[in-house]
């Protein structure tokens, strides 16, 4: 059955190989591209950002993180994780937090081993449908499967980082239409004087 028989020992072995192959540069060389998409440069036109070089993840791991972030907050209908540069944020935060690095590395390794076991390929090499299928079993209670606890734990972790990265970015705050940090001439009050119980409001965002 799916997920069963994926030994922790095996995941750790693969993970050790990944870590050895990692380009992890140590803590002295990092620079985080704060001027990600949408941010304004103070001096003339911003230079075209070069391809992001991950600070913590290996190129393969980073590609998976990028894919995961796009699956979690897609660009359908409005800007998503891709436009917000979320995978860069995740890399930077994991890079900056030794306490969480092991969990990410272990989780990504688990995900690939899991994909290999199910479909014979790494997660990032799968079709979008299969990727979605794998995540659904990790994300929705009624689709949980036995033996995938570690995957569920990892999905929760990576979703938390993607949500953090997206909704603190300029495009994420625009997506929510964040109303704070603005200047109002008087304290904004409820505009529904005729319906104080708010039982008959027309929906702005559809269900």
């Amino acid at each position, binding site marked *: 059955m799916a997920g069963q028989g994926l030994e922790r020992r095996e995941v750790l072995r693969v993970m050790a190989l990944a870590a050895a192959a990692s380009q992890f540069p140590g803590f002295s060389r990092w620079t985080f591209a*704060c001027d*990600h998409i949408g*941010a304004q440069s103070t001096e003339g036109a911003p230079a075209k950002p070069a391809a992001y070089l991950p600070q913590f993840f290996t190129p393969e791991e980073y590609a998976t993180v990028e894919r995961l972030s796009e*699956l*979690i*907050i*897609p660009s*359908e*209908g*409005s800007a*998503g994780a891709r436009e917000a540069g979320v995978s860069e*944020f995740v890399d930077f*935060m994991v890079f*900056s*937090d*030794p*306490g*969480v690095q092991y969990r990410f590395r272990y989780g990504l390794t688990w995900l690939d081993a899991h994909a290999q076991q199910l479909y014979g390929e790494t997660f990032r090499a799968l079709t979008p449908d299969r990727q*979605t299928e794998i*995540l659904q079993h990790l*994300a*929705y*209670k009624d689709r949980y499967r036995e033996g995938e606890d570690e995957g569920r734990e990892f999905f929760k972790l990576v*979703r*938390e980082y993607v*949500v*953090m*990265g997206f*909704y*603190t*970015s*300029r495009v994420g*705050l625009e*997506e*929510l*239409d*964040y*109303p*704070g*940090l*603005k*200047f*109002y*001439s*008087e*304290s*904004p*009050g*409820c505009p*529904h004087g005729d319906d*104080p*119980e*708010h*039982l008959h*409001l027309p*929906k*702005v*965002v*559809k*269900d």
Partner: protein
Amino acid sequence: MKNLMPDQTYDVIVIGTGAGGGMAIKTLCEAGLKVCALNSGRRLDPAKDFRNHKQSYDMKYRGFGDPRKRDQYYHIENEYTAGLWEHGIAYTTAPGTEWEWPRCAAVGGKTNFWGRSAARMGDIDFKAGSRDGSDVDWPVSYEEIAPYYSRAERMIGVASTVQNRPSNPDGEYLPPMNLRCLDFILQKGCEKLGVPYLPDRLAQLTVAHEGHPPCHYCGNCTEGCDTGSFFSTPWFFLPLAEKTGNLELRTNAVVKNVLVDENGRAKGAAYIDRDRKQEMEVYAKAVVVAASCVESARILLNSKSSRFPTGLANSSGQLGHNLCDHLYGTTSYGYLPQLLGQGSFPDNVSNSQVVWMPRWQNLNNPHEEKFVRGYSIYPTGGCDEFPWYQDQIEGFGSEFKRNIKRYYPTPVSFYCQIPSLPSPTNYVDIDPEVRDIYGIPAVRVHFQWGPNELLMWEHAKEVCRDVIKASEGEVWGVGEKPNTPGYSLHETGTCRMGNDPKRFVTNRFGQAHDVPNLYVCDASVLLSCSDKTTTLSVLAFSLRTSEYLIENLRRGNPSS
């Protein structure tokens, strides 16, 4: 090395520049007295130090802070306010005590970032001791302190409404904040349960006041206000004091102890100049201690001499005792389905500090409930800077993204303000083993929540859950445990005021019973913290004490 160069003698030394010290400094300077103010930290530059108009994406770690340093942050501290809270000076806790104690050493202290709730206490608080038999009464009646509350309110500007409630006397108010959608819904729910839901007493300028611009409702108040549209001493009081030419403000001056002359009178203060790493002394005719509740106790306990072997003004043995604090915590949280799918609305205009549910328990009969006294609740919610409710929503993909947006205006949560009762086991003393980086013996805190406050916590959780339900909302959860003691920053006690010198550190005017030219002007003189915040009471009592001090100096008879 001690600097023993003779210094100018001032009329008054004021230790601390927060609400109590700031009020004393302003009042004394305006009366023509020469004041030397000592402050343990630096002076802030609002334009540089207050990052309240920074978007999360302007911050290196998006406002979450450097993960490697996160364990060192106090709960109130974040990437926006990092560097503004004291970490250098140690305090210790007794075994069994958890005490998280953020101190803002910067000029203005906690007024830079306070929650701005500014309700008056009343006789229900001042006479609580005899009313429920759990303590003594305050030596001051509401009638006596009311004019000082009015004057303090006029100085700082408080927005609210007249509410005619027995637990919280009305004051002189600026127009209130407008109620938001979620307030109307929750108010209806509260109505069904007989719980009050009213505009808070909010020291935030809804109109221009005393030369200060009105609030612009950006919502990041607790990062510090760079327009000075809510009361803090650096924006409101210190400029007035400086205008008189009577103030000398010494920053980065950590007071070690109060100096005493051969007659047992205060003659000055010894402090460490943090810049020069040198011990200094300064002299005056009178000393005002206003370093905040626990720090003031630390200074006086460390002011030992052969005449005062257990610390200055401690013949009662009560110095450092009767430490109280507000039990804080999220009592329950959930969402209002009525607002699902609504567009965003500026709910977070004042860090959500718009309304409160002022004490409604034990009003007619002090023993109506299983606990004595009472508590207040601060509801909060709506469109916040970050969708914290994300962990309540399952899944991923387009549906997840749409749900985050649908729920954006709906979350609500409730925060309790529960007073602890004075207890003989809650106090501060000096740690015999530990000294801080300047060699000053560290203060040690002994504190645990008592049964009365924990009964209130259980009560509050139940009521707030019921309010969500009565408002047709859905409950996501109830609080598991209260916040760590110290969290609220509302410590009271340690130098309580009372008429009997054998039982109280200070008299009814905040003057030390043992040392006539020593005065205390902070929350340490308050007998308990009640269900209200402490700042407005600190201001009112400090104003009264300062004027009493002025009168004594004028008469040349400080012991009158």
